[in-house]
């Protein structure tokens, strides 16, 4: 009997403690402050950078001189931490939940709307944007990927990027092809000519959730698909989207211009390796400047063309790129709001935009940075052209991260099926997409 009583007391005590912890959690969430800097708040900032360079260390080497420059100009010391992509979202989650974290941070621009929904980030209203040189100073497409339409941006773009078609000039010449494909039929035909022995026409990252979801979006646009309807409900399994994804998968399943092994490429580097190492002749990718540099390959090795557009009048949109890139956001809880905004201004200044984007092989997000000759190379100009004219941002809705995870994962499985020779049919694609669609859980 006594034992049982003690047991009850223990349980009751635990519940009380839990209730107290819950209460604590609540106040923690609403606490007004809690930045990382206690003393001399105005003098320091904490900045989380994402991994853009060849390694975390490389990023530090690139960024530190710029941060030193900022300190010289403003007297504000910036504590830099480069956060690996594998950890970044979890770390942002932790910071959002606790109100403890950096003052300024990089986010993937596709996360913008999801993160905006948390209300944890400083909105860049017109006044703040004016301080940064005005809305019009930024590239329109990049600025469109900073949060839900009709709301002030939750972040500002700092590195711009989009998709293009890299092709191996030597292989094209050997196969007797004198220009990059301009239509999908040409791409498939060229791909077949380029596929022989250990060489393949095209490389894809078939087990990468983010690459898959990006291509699902681009191909979907070309088929006239909308991932979310006007009321924000997901419709991943629309006939247009099914056709779009099937077209992408058919490059392996039917046209056989993609190495089945690509279906297990998951870490976002293997398809690029295949292209750089001469195992594949074409690659639909964002900037691969640093990999090309690491392999000592120049303009004579590769060319960049736009990904083919759908035939006009096919009902699809003339979109062949996704607005990719990195945005800079400021946490609401910062104790050094002015300093943080100064830093944002610094990072979006023409000079820093030139220096950093040059190093990372990405595109400046402000118009006035493009006068640097470094951005007049054929590759950068081609990317710039795509981003300005035919790129569209991923849907800016809070459920976007669920789209990436669910559709990207579904496509992993479809690639696996294609690689093992299972037929890819409208039905099999639709079944997977319907399942993904049903798993979306509305956020609000």
């Amino acid at each position, binding site marked *: 009997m006594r034992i049982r009583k003690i*047991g009850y007391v223990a349980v009751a005590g635990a519940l009380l403690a839990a209730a107290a912890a819950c209460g604590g959690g609540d106040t923690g969430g609403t606490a007004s402050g809690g930045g990382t800097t206690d003393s001399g708040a105005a003098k320091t900032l904490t900045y989380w950078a994402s991994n853009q360079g060849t390694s975390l260390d490389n990023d530090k080497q690139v960024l530190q001189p710029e941060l030193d420059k900022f300190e010289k100009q403003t007297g504000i010391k910036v504590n830099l931490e480069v*956060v690996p992509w594998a950890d970044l979202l979890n770390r942002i989650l*932790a910071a959002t939940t606790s109100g403890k974290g950096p003052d300024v941070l990089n986010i993937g621009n596709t996360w913008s709307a999801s993160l905006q929904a948390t209300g944890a980030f400083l909105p860049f209203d017109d006044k703040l944007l004016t301080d940064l040189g005005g809305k019009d100073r930024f590239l329109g497409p990049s600025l469109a990927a900073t949060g839900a339409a009709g709301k002030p941006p939750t972040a500002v773009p700092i590195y711009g990027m989009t998709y293009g078609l890299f092709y191996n000039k030597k292989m094209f010449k050997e196969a007797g092809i004198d220009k990059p494909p301009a239509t999908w039929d040409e791409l498939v035909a060229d791909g077949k000519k380029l596929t022989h022995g250990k060489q393949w026409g095209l490389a894809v990252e078939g087990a990468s959730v983010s690459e898959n979801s990006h291509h699902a979006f681009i191909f979907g646009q070309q088929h006239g698909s909308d991932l979310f309807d006007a009321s924000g409900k997901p419709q991943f399994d629309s006939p247009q989207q099914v056709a779009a994804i099937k077209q992408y998968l058919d490059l392996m399943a039917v046209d056989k211009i993609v190495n089945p092994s690509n279906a297990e490429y998951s870490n976002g580097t293997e398809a690029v390796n295949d292209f750089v190492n001469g195992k594949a002749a074409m690659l639909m990718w964002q900037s691969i400047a640093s990999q090309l540099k690491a392999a000592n390959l120049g303009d004579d090795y590769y060319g960049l063309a736009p990904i083919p557009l759908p035939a006009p009048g096919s009902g699809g949109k003339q979109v062949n790129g996704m607005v990719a890139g990195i945005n800079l956001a400021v946490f609401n809880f910062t104790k050094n709001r002015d300093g943080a905004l100064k830093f944002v201004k610094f990072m979006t200044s023409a000079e820093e935009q030139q220096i950093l984007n040059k190093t990372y092989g990405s595109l400046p997000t402000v118009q006035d940075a493009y006068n640097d000759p470094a951005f007049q190379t054929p590759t950068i100009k081609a990317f710039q052209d795509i981003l300005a004219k035919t790129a569209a941002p991923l849907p800016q809705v809070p459920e976007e991260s669920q789209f990436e995870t669910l559709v990207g994962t579904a496509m992993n499985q479809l690639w696996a099926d294609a690689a093992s020779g299972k037929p890819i049919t409208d039905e099999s694609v639709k079944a997977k997409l319907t399942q993904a669609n049903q798993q979306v859980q509305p956020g609000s």
Partner: protein
Amino acid sequence: MREPRWLPLARWIGLGFLGLFTLIPLYVMVSSSIKPLQDVQNGFSWIPTTISLRPFADIWKTIPLARYFGNSLIVASIASVLSVTVAIFAAYAVSRYRFPGRRVFTVTVLSTQMFPGILFLLPLFMIFVNVGNATGLELYGSRTGLIITYLTFSLPFSIWMLVGYFDSIPKALDEAAKVDGNGPLGALFRVVIPAAIPGIVAVTIYAFMTAWGEVLFASVMTDDSTRTLAVGLRGYATENDVYWNQVMAASLVVSVPVVIGFLLLQRYLVQGLTAGAVK
């Protein structure tokens, strides 16, 4: 035991199979660590065509390996020592006293082994943040928080193993010590602990290994300055390339001291388990 004639053959086959199963990944690790990246990416070969020791130099530059290693050592050592200390007291109470709630205590503690980490990761994080706000003791992002977390991860199994071990030490011994004028703690420190050294070492090793390899909590609860190896090693998979040869080289480098330490102590491990857990 009498050995039948077929036993040596069975032993040869069985242990040979287990040996190969154990060996092959270790061999792959070693051989890949001395190949240039190009060779590693181009397909597997048992014998490296070019031997390069550069990976062993590069591993320190690609990520701050030394710091991660230091963090892991600090966290795992302190967590295991504290865990064992706490476990010794608890196990002593359970082994030597019949008190109300004893059974509730043992069952509750053991049952925490079945909590899915994902269930309490976020709440634990919130508690750390709130404790930090209330007391100024920084638990989130610090080694302290990680140490406290890990020490409880190994606590249940440690207590349970030590209870078994202490049970095997005759009670008459500590009664004798008490007659000599020792209190309960005196008996624990003068009699039980010295007699239980193998078990304590075994539990320490177990606690160390638990803290050494944990990934999930470390990925949320650490920042660059406190990151442990378990998550830090992922840094070799950069946006640019996966440096397989460096992953292998680094794995090897960080494993060697642990494996050696482990092997030096494994005599105790077997001994400790013999009398403890397995009763």
